[in-house]
């Protein structure tokens, strides 16, 4: 007997008028894993998550959550599911606590003390009795997490949880998601940020323009990632360029901002840097421009160039 999938979406398609927002996507999330749905804004991530929650009806395809479908179970599909889509919204004229109490009513009640517990988890206990209208964006985001935990879910769906947060907020939110994931909860995380997903997800689906551009594990994704890129600032860029010509395995060019752009495998790049030192070219700065996965992500989803669709298809086929 195969274990029940937390999410089993097959061939899901949704059109908004003439626009195909989601085009036959298939996403399968095993119970207990942390799954990332990645894509630039407008790729169809949110539409897919809304269909998962029954907020939008798919035109075709099937969505089963813990082996229940909307057709059979209605709102029972959401029994083990919680989360939020885009930024969480609450009633501004109610306090944070009153919002949670109301939502708990809709959930059929919660066990005693749970509201206090979830408020503690997201560190909103002190502000719980203020009206949500006065909350900052980050506070609302945290209240959204609290409202989700209130359902004691088996599957937590978070849509861009770090969106709009300040760096400290992003750090805290990531820490929270990690801890939740570590506790055995199935997490379905959507993001436009590779870095966010890379750290915590086991499997990812990359969406581009409503279609699946990549589907697999992070490890698989890494194997097809391009060489990382670095920005080098040296005391003598001309000399460095000249040296690079004799150094195989790295590709060096001069950037208009008068920095050297170096791409190549990590070992080759460090060998090149060592060569520079030996040649008395001093290194003033060394920055990673983008991680290999980010580079790949942009390659898979870059839709500004006409060839991108073609290329991402190739990338997809290469993986199969």
């Amino acid at each position, binding site marked *: 007997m195969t274990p029940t999938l*937390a999410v089993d979406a097959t061939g899901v398609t949704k059109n*908004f008028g003439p626009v195909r927002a989601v085009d036959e996507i298939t996403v399968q999330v095993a*119970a*207990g894993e942390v799954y990332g749905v990645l894509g630039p804004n407008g790729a169809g991530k949110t539409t897919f998550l*809304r269909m998962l*929650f*029954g*907020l*939008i*009806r798919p035109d075709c395809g099937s969505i089963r959550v*813990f*082996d229940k479908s909307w057709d059979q179970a*209605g*709102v*029972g599909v*959401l*029994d083990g*599911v*919680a*989360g*939020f*889509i*885009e930024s*969480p*919204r*609450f*009633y*501004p*004229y*109610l306090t944070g606590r*009153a919002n949670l109490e*109301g*939502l708990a*009513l*809709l*959930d*059929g*009640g919660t066990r005693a003390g*749970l509201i206090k*517990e979830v408020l*503690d*988890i997201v*560190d909103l206990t002190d502000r719980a009795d203020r009206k949500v209208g006065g909350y900052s964006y980050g506070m609302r985001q*945290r209240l959204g997490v609290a*409202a989700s*935990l209130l*359902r*004691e*879910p*088996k599957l937590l769906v978070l849509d861009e949880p770090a969106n709009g947060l300040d760096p400290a907020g992003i750090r*805290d*939110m990531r*820490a*929270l998601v990690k*801890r*939740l994931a570590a*506790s*055995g*909860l*199935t997490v379905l995380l959507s993001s436009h940020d590779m870095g966010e997903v890379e750290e915590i997800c086991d499997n990812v689906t990359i969406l581009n323009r409503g279609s699946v551009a990549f589907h697999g594990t992070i490890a698989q994704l890494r194997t097809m990632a391009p060489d990382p890129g670095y920005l080098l600032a040296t005391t003598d860029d001309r000399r460095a360029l000249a040296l690079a010509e004799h150094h195989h395995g790295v590709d060096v060019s001069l950037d208009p901002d008068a920095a050297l752009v170096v791409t190549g495998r990590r070992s080759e790049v460090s060998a090149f840097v060592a060569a520079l030192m030996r040649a008395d070219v001093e290194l003033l700065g060394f920055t990673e421009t983008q991680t290999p996965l980010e580079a790949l992500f942009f390659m898979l989803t870059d839709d500004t160039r006409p060839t991108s669709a073609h290329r991402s298809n190739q990338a997809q086929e290469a993986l199969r």
Partner: protein
Amino acid sequence: MTAVQTHMDPAVRESTVAVERRRGGLGAALRFEVRKLRAQYRGWAVLAGAVLAPIPIVVIINGQSRPPKDTLFGRFATDNGFALTLLILGFATQWVLPLLTAIVAGDIFASEDQHGTWKTVLTRSTSRAQIFWAKTLTACGFAVLVLTLLAASTIASSLLIVGHQPLTGLSGQTIGAGTALQLVTASWATTLAPTLGFTCLAIVLSVWFRNPAVGIATPVVLGMVMVLIGGLGGIEIIRPLLLTTSFEAWHGLFTQPRFTGPLVEGLLVSAAWSVLSLGAAFAIVRRRDITGG
């Protein structure tokens, strides 16, 4: 959020096959709707208006040297409390009752769009149908409450300030104070059906346009248009079908002999408007894709 505790995850027991949980039913959704309504200023403002506004109106009309003869019972309004409540009733049915009920009913669905909270409530364990009926029942309950308060306040202040002399009926007959009080109370009660009709109209507009301003203003405008159409000669065939015609069905209680044909018709017409409005609203809510918020 920095104070994340290690026992933080009470939620996760085990990711097993079957997941069942309790679900909030209609009652729970209703309690939440009432709680939301109670937390909002507008509902209280309407209720306070319904209780307080009749008092200065009664005082002002009572102080007029010439009674407002253009309206039914107006000519007796300055020296008969029963006539004054009926004058105010006639005025209230022009647009006041549609407005009072629409302030809540025209907003109760659209405010979810305004606050982007459809996704918040629909991702819990309550179905769209349950949310729909909870909102509808809340709006209708509020309509009953506001009508009751307005009627009680108008009758009480009229009788206390102007008096409870015997009333001249619409057949010229004299109606004793005891009977008059019963008939006046019944007259206010007969406006409940069309008021609920307007409540349902406001609900469908609120659902359709997703805009509280449209949900509140349109029923009032439609009410005034219906009054206008109802007053025109020549197109009287559609007059009985108008929601506002039911607002005048109480006239039959004050004639001799009484007639109740328009009351029965009014009840049927109000029911038809309500059923059609709610049916359309329900269909929209059920089918709608929640893309906003």
